[in-house]
Every structure is written in structure tokens, then in C-alpha cells.
């Protein structure tokens, strides 16, 4: 217990927690992107992947709750550190703040992080909870079923979601700031956990920028492809199929889903 108390109280311990939780979240966003890039395969691939993730409720919620705890830890530590850092300089300098070797991303971690949290909230409501009132399209996300398998049609949902250009634009801003956050965050993670030395330092910095660029381009590719028309015909087909399915279904079946 003494170890935990020192971990949560010392500035270095809080940085370990910050870096550790950040590292887990980086692994998640990389995995999330690799999974989502199946969007460029035929629709059945993404739908099967969606079904795989959703079908085991116990594992699904274990992962969800773990990620939620990690996100909360990252945010709580960020705010605690921010408060103690501010308290360390009660009187500000009269000269305007200049960076002296500090990158813009390193000085704006809290702001970029908070915008990413706001984006994450929208993203979950949009594609996970599927609140129909915020998706900006007449397509009812809840009713999309893949013709043939009856699995939830993730591919059609993504196409319908990103065909609304303001939504696609907001996604661009969200992943843009996430990548910006990570250009510094990934490099700082190695520093905070002590995994940096004169040999690794330049490699780590380049790898952090490379990873941020990969995430940015990867995540932007999906809404961009949709805006260029990918999946439009498939979406129409799915919507018509669902309309027929719902018309034939006995009353109440959709509610009981």
C-alpha cells in the first residue's frame, strides 16, 4: 500500500501513471485503426469483425470497463498534475511566454487532450450508443442489418455516418488533435518511464512522429473514402433490404430485437 501511496503522491509516480495509461490508450488507438482499415475490404469483412467484437458480452464489457478506467486515470492524473504545476508558479513573468526549445504540442497537451475527450464522447454516442438525433442523417443506425447474415451492418453505418460532411469534418479535427497530442505524448511516455537514452532519443522522436502520421492518415482515409462515394450503392441496398425486412416482420419484432 505504501508503494501505491508513493505512486499516486509523488510527481514522478503520477508521471508513471500518466505515461502508463497513455501507453495503453496508444495501443488501443493503433488496434482500433488496424481493425477499422478493414473498411477497405468488402463489407462482409468489417461486419464480421464487428460481430466478433460485439458477440461475447463478458469480454466486451471487461475491455470497455478497463479502457474506461484507463481513460479516467489519464484524465484525473492530467488534472492533478496541471493543478500542482500551476501552483508551483504563483507569480507569472511579465515577459510574454516563449517556448525555448519546447514544441507547441508539448505546451498544449491539456488543451489537445480535452478536445480529444470531447470528440471521444461524441464518437461513442455516434457509433457505439447510436443516438439517432446526433448522426445528422435520415438513415436509422439501429435498423441496419447485413443482408444474408443478419449481423449488425457496421459498414453501412460508417458510410451513412460519414456521408454527413460536418460529421466527417469533426472527425478530421478530432483525429488531427489526437495525432498532434501523440507527437509529443508518445515521445514523452518513453522519457517518463525512463526508456530514453542518448542513443534512443532521436529514434523515439522520429517513431512518435511516424506513428502520429500513420494514425492521422489511417483515420482520415475512411471518411475521405466515404465522401468520395465508397459504399454509397451498398448503403442504398442495405437500407432497401431493411425496409423490406421491417415491412414483412410481425409488429413488435423490432422492439424486441
Amino acid at each position, binding site marked *: 500500500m*505504501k*508503494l501505491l501511496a*508513493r*505512486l499516486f*503522491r*509523488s*510527481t*514522478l*509516480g*503520477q*508521471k*508513471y501513471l500518466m505515461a502508463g495509461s497513455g501507453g495503453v490508450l496508444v495501443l488501443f488507438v493503433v488496434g482500433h485503426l488496424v481493425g477499422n482499415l478493414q473498411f477497405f475490404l468488402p463489407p462482409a469483412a468489417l461486419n464480421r469483425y464487428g460481430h466478433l467484437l460485439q458477440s461475447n458480452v463478458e469480454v466486451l464489457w471487461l475491455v470497455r470497463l478497463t479502457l474506461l478506467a484507463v481513460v479516467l486515470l489519464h484524465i484525473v492524473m492530467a488534472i492533478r*498534475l496541471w493543478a*500542482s*504545476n500551476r*501552483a*508551483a*508558479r*504563483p*507569480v*507569472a*513573468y*511579465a*515577459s*510574454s*511566454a*516563449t*517556448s*525555448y*526549445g*519546447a*514544441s507547441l504540442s*508539448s*505546451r498544449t*497537451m491539456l488543451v489537445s487532450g480535452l478536445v480529444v475527450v470531447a470528440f471521444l464522447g461524441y464518437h461513442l454516442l455516434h457509433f457505439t450508443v447510436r443516438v439517432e438525433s446526433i448522426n445528422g442523417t435520415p438513415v436509422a443506425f439501429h435498423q441496419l442489418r447485413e443482408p444474408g447474415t443478419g449481423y449488425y451492418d457496421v459498414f453501412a453505418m460508417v458510410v451513412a455516418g460519414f456521408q454527413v460532411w460536418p460529421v466527417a469534418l469533426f472527425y478530421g479535427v478530432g483525429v488531427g488533435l489526437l495525432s498532434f497530442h501523440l507527437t*509529443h505524448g508518445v*515521445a*514523452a511516455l*518513453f*522519457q*517518463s*518511464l*525512463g*526508456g*530514453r*537514452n*542518448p542513443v534512443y*532519443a532521436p529514434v523515439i522522436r522520429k517513431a512518435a512522429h511516424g506513428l502520429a502520421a500513420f494514425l492521422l492518415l489511417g483515420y482520415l482515409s475512411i471518411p475521405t473514402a466515404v465522401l468520395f462515394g465508397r459504399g454509397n450503392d451498398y448503403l442504398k441496398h442495405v437500407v432497401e433490404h431493411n425496409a423490406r425486412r421491417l415491412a414483412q416482420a410481425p409488429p413488435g419484432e423490432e422492439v424486441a430485437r
Partner: protein
Amino acid sequence: MKVKLKVWRQRNADTPGRFVVYDTPELNPNMSFLEMLDVVNEQLTLQGEEPIAFDHDCREGICGTCSLVINGKPHGPQRGVATCQTYLRSFRDGDEILVEPFRARPFPLVKDLVVGRQAFDRIMTAGGFISVRTGSAPDAHAIPVPKEAAERAMDAAACIGCGACVAVCKNASAMLFVSAKVSQFGLLPQGQPERYRRVAAMVEQMDREGFGACTVTGSCEAVCPKRISLDFIARMNRDYGVALLRGA
């Protein structure tokens, strides 16, 4: 050349301070910044005014006593030098120069540009030493020290403890100072017996003093008059983690 100085004047910690503008007499561009302040102070003394209080000692860049934030940068515009090695030739004739004290909660203001840096002394007292028998000097090669370790320890020991890293850091963090002082001992064989106890004690004293945490912006490394590397912070993070696991 002449410059216009905008200097922070404050009688003591309990009295509010303010900036006062001084026009300097004719100056030699090869004067150091501190010599320029001496000239201004002579003039103030002749006029019956209170001279500007500022810290200084060796004036050759090795004692770490001089401080000052000059136009927003600790130790002035040049890299890798202390205020005493900042010369007026780094400025232009007629420049207005803003001079402020180091600002951080653990560095309480004493008077004008003088701040108390005893927090650093207390961190050193907590663990910045090696407990050895002090007697006659040991034979030169009694303890083998690898060349790389000796050089890196020397790089860390180059830290003069001026506090510019704290002054420039957006979080007023003392990590660069503490990491250099932890490493100068931790890299050498003589420092091994107390390695983990030392890092834990020094980091915890640093926290008690109220310094901020490290965001890895790298501005400390950029303004350090001795160019201490950020790598030492990573090294301290590593050692402190091991110390936590060992319960040191």
C-alpha cells in the same frame, strides 16, 4: 552604447513590487550584464537611491549564483552561458531590456532580483552526497571507473545549481537539477551503495518543496548554462521506479 532597463524592484517579500525603468549611462559593449548592473548601481548610489539587489559571486560561470530572467529567458539571449557571461554586445544600442527575478513558489523573493534558492540545498541535504570515510585520498585506481561512466557523471556534475531550469519551465519543475545531482553520484561505483535510497530521498524532498512535474517540453535543456541533457531526467525516472519497487 546605452540601453533602457526595465527592472523588477521589490523591497521585500511582504511589499508589492513593480517595474522601474532606468536609462543607463554610456556602456562598453564588452561589459558583462552584471558589470552593467554595477555601473547602474553606482549611478543610483550617487543619486542617493537604493541600488538594485541581484545575486552574483564568481562571475566566471561556475558558481551558479547569478540568476535573472532577461527578456523572458533565464541568463539572457545566449545559449550555454550564465548571466555573468552574457555581454552587452548581445544587445543593440538603445534596446529596452526587461529584467525579472526567477519566478517559482519554492524560490521565494528576497529583494528586487534576489530569490532564495535554499530549496536546492535542502534537496542536496536529503541525499546529494556519498557517505564515505573521509581520510587520506585513496589510490587513483583503487576503484575502476569505466571511461563512459566517468564522462557522463562529469556531464551531470557540470550542473551549477543556478535554477534556470526551474525558472524557464512552464511547470517550475526542478527535474533537470535533481536528475543531474542524482546521476552524478549514481553513475559512479562509489555512488552505488546509496543509489536508490538517494533518488527516493531527493525526489521526495523536491516534491515537498513544491516544484512542478516534468512535461518533457525540453526548455530546461535549452536554457541550461551547462547544457545538462534531458536524458538525465529519464535516468532519474528509471532509478526512482526501481527505488519504489525496492521500497527504498
